[in-house]
């Protein structure tokens, strides 16, 4: 599956965080790489959305939508915002 950019999930991120997030800063908890959310690698398999670090490929964020609820895992991030 080919990666999209964080920009592609601007709407989803806005739903979850209540604001524009594509220009927010992020730091990978595994390798410390600092990037704007728009620059992260996004994979959208049928079940949800996986955001990975472009430097070390670690999973940074996972979003899964069930009915009208979005389950969010941000454990791969050291900081966001």
């Amino acid at each position, binding site marked *: 599956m*080919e*990666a*999209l*950019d*964080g*920009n*592609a999930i*601007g*709407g989803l991120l*806005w*739903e979850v965080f*209540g*604001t*524009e997030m*594509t*220009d927010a800063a992020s730091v990978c908890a595994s390798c410390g790489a600092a990037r*704007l*959310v*728009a*620059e992260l690698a996004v994979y959208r398999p049928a079940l949800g959305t996986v955001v990975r670090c472009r430097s070390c490929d670690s999973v940074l964020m996972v979003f899964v939508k069930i009915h009208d609820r979005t389950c969010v895992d941000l454990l791969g991030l050291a900081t966001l915002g």
Partner: protein
Amino acid sequence: MAGTALRGRLTWQVAKVSAVTVETASVRTLTLDVPHWPGHRAGQHLDIRLTDEDGYVAERSYSIASAPGEPVAITVERLDDGEVSPYLTDELRAGDDLELRGPIGGYFVWEPENGGPLLLLAGGSGIVPLRSILRHRERTGSTVPVRLLYSARTLNDVIYRAELDRPGSDVEVIYTLTRSQPPGWSGYARRADAALLAEVAWPAAAMPLAYVCGPTSFVEAVSQALVQSGYPPERIKTERFGATGGT
């Protein structure tokens, strides 16, 4: 708050299609009348949501094709196996409703104060947000010089061709046609790679600002070539839209 969108909120709303423009055999521009539109920036996108009778929902993002201050428009390429695009290109008519939210995106945007020179690199329908940037530059009277490299399969697949054939002052439009070329074609006829970019891109010493939009493979190839030629990564903004769309 009638007439104004609440700042900071991103809510679904119903827009009305005001016009459908045929761009190519598979591409349409939908001009939209959006009642609560807070205004957009050049390069942003919006989300479209289709709901069928069973309640099945499909959402897709589309780049905004128009400049800030112009009526909202999106340009959609029909993907034969798509869930959303065939409806948008084949079924929708002026006067129909369409559910959307936006504008979205604070990264792949250009304002005159960001300067240039600008290097715009489009693969297939990746031209759409770059067209918004070009029109915004024109409308704001910016004199930032622009080079646009547009990679398309054939000349008939070039979107906005009439507009791009009459570029404004200090705008240079360069096509490369990767699949077939019309008789007598004197332009490029190969994939956008390091060798092609070496011929058409501003030298890195000019401190250009690059915007690359297209299928993932196009964006990766082009952005890597730019970095190798000395462009600082922070001066290259990319927008990948997956494997779909032709270059």
